[in-house]
């Protein structure tokens, strides 16, 4: 295992985060604070509790997930796409680094950054609403595994993307609807039966539901099913990556 290389890629990526601190940390914190002011304080005050949880607290796990998914996909994809775009990828490809080590470096950094920002948002949220975490270990499980899976997913997008449009396609067009319709702002019990059934095809529903359960012990689906879904998603991403490594798809061809 080329530990020095993993460290080099990881710290190189983290240095990029430091350089773009304003945009990477301050911006999600501001937008989340706005959500809390609008949905938590202004509108939320007029909405009754959902499953015994105040509305402001109820939306917190969903908001953290929204940021976590967007950040992890964004960082995971940009980290590998940018060297492809500038051509500096030649160096990584001609180094004595296995693909597993490349992934550990890039995805590790993307997931770390996601977890950092998610934590900052959790702390920001605690300024606006009363939060208690019923199952801290489960919370960390959902939090970290989601960060890792979606950073991997972002990494795959970064390898697949041929231009900036493709790079932004999934994070901009696919993820927000999935998160918004995945029960970030409501319990799916509040939907008509047809849309409830449709919602069960939305993978993000399981993430938000499981994550919310770790806070308040209320969930749209069984938390065990949620945990299983994350593991399934992680496995799918790992399998796709394994195929990419084997074939050199869009990297060594």
């Amino acid at each position: 295992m080329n530990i020095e290389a993993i460290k080099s890629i990881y710290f190189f990526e983290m240095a990029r985060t430091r350089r773009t601190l304003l945009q990477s940390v301050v911006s999600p914190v501001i937008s989340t604070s706005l959500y809390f002011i609008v949905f938590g304080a202004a509108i939320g005050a007029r909405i009754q509790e959902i499953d015994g949880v105040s509305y402001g607290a109820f939306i917190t796990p969903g908001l953290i997930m929204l940021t976590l998914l967007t950040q992890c996909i964004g960082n995971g994809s940009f980290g590998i796409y940018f060297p492809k775009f500038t051509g500096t990828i030649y160096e990584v490809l001609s180094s004595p680094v296995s693909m597993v080590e490349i992934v550990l470096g890039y995805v590790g950094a993307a997931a770390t950054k996601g977890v950092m920002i998610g934590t900052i948002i959790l702390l920001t949220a605690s300024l606006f609403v009363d939060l208690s975490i019923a199952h801290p270990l489960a919370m960390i499980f959902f939090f970290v595994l989601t960060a890792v899976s979606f950073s991997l997913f972002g990494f795959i997008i970064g390898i697949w993307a041929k231009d900036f449009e493709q790079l932004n396609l999934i994070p901009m067009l696919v993820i927000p609807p999935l998160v918004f319709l995945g029960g970030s702002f409501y319990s799916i019990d509040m939907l008509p039966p047809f849309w409830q059934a449709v919602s069960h095809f939305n993978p993000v529903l399981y993430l938000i539901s499981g994550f919310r359960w770790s806070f308040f012990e209320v969930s749209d689906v069984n938390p065990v099913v949620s945990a299983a879904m994350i593991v399934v998603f992680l496995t799918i991403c790992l399998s796709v990556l394994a195929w990419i490594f084997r074939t050199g798809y869009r990297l060594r061809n």
Partner: protein
Amino acid sequence: MAPIVSVSNLSKTYASGFKALKGVSLDIEQGEILALLGPNGAGKTTLISIICGIVNPSGGTVVVGGHDVVRDFRETRSMIGLVPQELTTDAFETVWNTVTFSRGLHGKKPNPAHIEKVLKDLSLWDKKDNMLRELSGGMKRRVLIAKALSHEPRVLFLDEPTAGVDVSLRKSMWEVVERLRASGVTIILTTHYIEEAEEIADRIGVINGGEILLVEDKTALMSKLGRKQLRVDLSHPLEAVPETLSTYNLTLEGDGHCLIYDYDTSAERTGITSLLAALAEAGVRLKDISTRQSSLEDIFVEIVGAGR
């Protein structure tokens, strides 16, 4: 001694169907400077990319230092430094960080003393804290060389290192190359500038259309294919080559003011003595005599032209 790089029957067909390499075989000896010459699209960069691990081969094998580049990629890539053709750098990194990053990627522990030496050798020391986007093209080229030398490679690939580089940088770069060679590093460079190959290479390889047309010791190549030309300037113009000189295959140029005689330097007899005697006998008065040796460029054009 076993060659440091051994390429056997290497082929590459890109997804578009373009055959960049068609069964290339090539041995590179330890400690030599090999210049690969070839027109654009000849396959030079693809060949280097496969040896360095950037591109997967479609067929054939490459062995570096006794290790297969696909199976034992860790060993082979640790030995190799690559300076790419394009000036690809991370705009927002500093010179120091990007060179240190390269060393780390190659699995080497940080060694600030070595990085300092490399930067000083390449006259980059005073730029070490500058961001790469602030540097000129020539400076960026030096940074790419510094990155390639950061992990102390045994084999160095320079893909068109002097494209767009001014004369003074070119000179200092060749000094670096000479020093590296003296320390035992094997150097493979590709270039369009034939005079460069002529000046610094030990051996010359010519590649065109994905095939190696020849690989030869430079001086042997020059003398084997090198023709010399004797130019005789005449005091009085001639209308035609005199009958008595017809056996010499002379051509008359410059409105009859000049006779050109082609001869082979490696032949047993060049025929110059008898030609001069015959000219005197024919009553031709000479004004001046000069000779010219064909350059590597002439040879290159000849080989590539014949391959077409």
